[in-house]
């Protein structure tokens, strides 16, 4: 059963409204969590019985310079709003996560990453300036050189509320990416192909069949995408309408109801067949090139609206780990094998390459990430989280593995200390005490990870 949390939501449209919420916090003793679209998988933007500061109404573009690709935004602007705004001028956000509905403030607060993390870095590394409002009402303007900037990015909204974000975008000459797919017959091959592709492509992502066992463990497909510089139809592809998926599949079935069709396949047998099908289809097409609009390549999750509903009522647990190069292969093999062993194979497994980042609460490593989605059922509910937590302690953390807060809802304070590093956690808490002395900012996740 998925844990939920209810809070009292306030949605101001300006900075004065944010201050009102802090005052309400003082008056009622209920603490405040900033929230964007609420796309974190766990309790990052929830605050049980507390105040939720929903920033989605603060969604204006404050300044846009189409010549240089420099844009200044309010925190409630979504990634979707952003790309739709700048695409026709020939720009695309340099780093985007796998869904387009999170807000700019949100992706900065969790320091999200995309399929080009190993060479472009995280969202935070594209940010040139932020303005932060502290609970006291004071506003600070921060730049990448400032220690506070490096603490705010990835700071989970706990050090103040970001009221504007200035980002440098990337010039694109086409609305398409050139995408090729490759097949890997085992985990070793998956690593090898990804290493080969990351030397040549702009975006690389691997999908692993979580139900393949034994010698085929870790088999899957790798997508490598490159920017297109010679697009004769740039005028047509660099438009929002070209990027968006049609509302219906084959002109008939509404995409918004696709999750209903998927529901019957959400079980071991269904997934085994689905994965096998996908793998075979993919390996047949290996090397073959297609042109895919940016939005369709990046925002995989949005292809099936409300995809999480096909996993209801139990929901999903996502477990994503970041492991340094030296230990990644054995750790990932152990993770997949162990979960298959206990009878809960991951239904979705995504593999990416990364590098370290300069921020205080960091999850980046010079290595790889593996993200596993598990379907929660009444049978496995009790054991699933315990098994994953055990993996964390016995396999992942000892190998120097780290966790990404936006996906986490089960890390303990002790585990968090190892993942972020004791020094980083202590410094973060020091800064929190300085910037929020009344301790008004609080999220369920913060309470779990840092108390």
């Amino acid at each position: 059963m998925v844990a939920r949390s209810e809070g009292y939501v306030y949605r101001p449209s300006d900075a004065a409204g944010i201050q009102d919420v802090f005052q309400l916090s003082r008056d009622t003793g209920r603490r405040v969590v900033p929230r964007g679209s609420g796309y974190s998988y766990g309790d990052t933007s929830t605050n049980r019985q507390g105040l939720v500061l929903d920033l989605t109404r603060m969604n204006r573009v404050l300044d846009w310079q189409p010549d240089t690709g420099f844009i200044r935004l309010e925190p409630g602007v979504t990634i979707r709003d952003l790309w739709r705004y700048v695409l026709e001028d020939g720009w695309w956000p340099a780093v985007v996560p796998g869904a387009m509905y999170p807000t700019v403030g949100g992706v900065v607060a969790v320091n999200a990453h995309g399929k080009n993390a190993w060479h472009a870095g995280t969202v935070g590394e594209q940010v040139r300036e932020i303005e932060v409002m502290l609970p006291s009402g004071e506003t600070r303007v921060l730049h990448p050189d400032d220690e506070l900037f490096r603490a705010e990015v990835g700071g989970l909204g706990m050090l103040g509320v970001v009221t504007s974000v200035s980002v440098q975008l990337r010039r694109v000459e086409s609305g398409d990416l050139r995408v090729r797919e490759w097949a890997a017959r085992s985990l070793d091959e998956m690593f090898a192909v990804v290493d080969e592709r990351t030397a040549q492509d702009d975006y690389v992502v691997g999908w692993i069949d979580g139900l393949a066992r034994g010698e085929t463990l870790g088999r899957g497909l790798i997508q490598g995408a490159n920017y297109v510089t010679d697009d004769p139809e740039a005028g047509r592809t660099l438009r929002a309408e070209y990027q968006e998926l049609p509302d219906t599949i084959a002109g008939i079935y509404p995409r918004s109801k696709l999750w209903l069709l998927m529901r019957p396949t959400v079980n071991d047998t269904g997934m085994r067949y689905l994965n096998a099908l996908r793998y075979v289809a993919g390996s047949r097409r290996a090397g073959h090139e297609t042109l895919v609009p940016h939005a369709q390549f990046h925002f995989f999750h949005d292809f099936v609206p409300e995809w999480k509903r096909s996993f209801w009522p139990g929901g999903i647990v996502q477990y994503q780990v970041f492991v340094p190069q030296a230990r990644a292969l054995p750790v990932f093999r152990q993770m997949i094998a162990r979960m298959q062993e206990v009878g809960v194979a991951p239904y979705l497994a995504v593999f990416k390459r990364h590098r370290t980042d300069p921020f205080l609460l960091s999850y980046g490593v010079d290595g790889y990430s593996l993200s596993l989605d598990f379907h929660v059922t009444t049978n496995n509910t009790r054991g699933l989280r315990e098994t994953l937590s055990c993996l964390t302690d016995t396999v992942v953390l000892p190998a120097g593995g780290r966790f990404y807060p936006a996906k986490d809802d089960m890390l303990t304070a002790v585990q968090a200390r190892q993942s972020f590093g004791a020094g980083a956690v202590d410094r973060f808490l020091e800064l929190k005490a300085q910037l929020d002395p009344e301790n008004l900012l609080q999220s369920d996740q913060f309470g779990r990870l840092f108390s």
Partner: protein
Amino acid sequence: MSGPPGVDGQTDRLLPWTRALVVGGTSGIGEAIARQLASTGIRVSVIGRREERLQQIADDLNREGAEPLVLPFAHDVRETNEIPVLFQEIVDRLGGLDLVVYAPGVLPPIGPREFPTETDLNTIAVNLAGAVAWLNEAADRFGRAGRGTIVGISSVAGDRGRRGNPVYNASKAGLDTYLEALRARLAVRGVTIVTVKPGYVRTAMLENNPPGPLPVSDPEVVAAEILDAAAAGKRVVYIPGWWRIIMAVTRMIPAPIFERLSF
């Protein structure tokens, strides 16, 4: 370490709630429900009039050194002006809420030629007005949250007005219609509302209502059936199930005949 809420090593029963409020949890069906919820690890706020009963239940179910599972509150449902503040306090203390059960009921003995208005108004106050005051709070909160379960303990007695206790019948009929109307408002918003119609149950209420030849159920069994039905999202539940047929027949009896029947 215990498992996630709703799961317990002893009962192994998986109920889909983590925080519950049982009004009228110090006797009868309400008490059985409160005890069963707490025994599966669900945090329960128990409301009742008698402090010693409240304390007894808390003592039985709260373990030393562990987080208390039972939060007792003394309250008389006829004091409806207390309810909004009490509801908010309970939600804060529990840390949330996803199940509310209204169980209080009185069944005073009424003579066949007696029309005791004061007693009757008290029956309405406990059986219906108290339910409205508590369940309105729950409906408002659950409607906004888009989730939650409300359980109203009514009775087969609400299905038709009989000569034995007119106002008891009326109060339960009123409760049935109120819960039906809440479903009309909230079902599309993801809120489950269950109308429970028990037959004869072995509780204090039976003193004034002899069952005659019909079987009597145990409150623990009734409570378990209620929780299962609520977890399954049922709308109207007769307990035991065959009462549905009896009442369907009873409702069909034409008035001129029914008025001459002695039950």
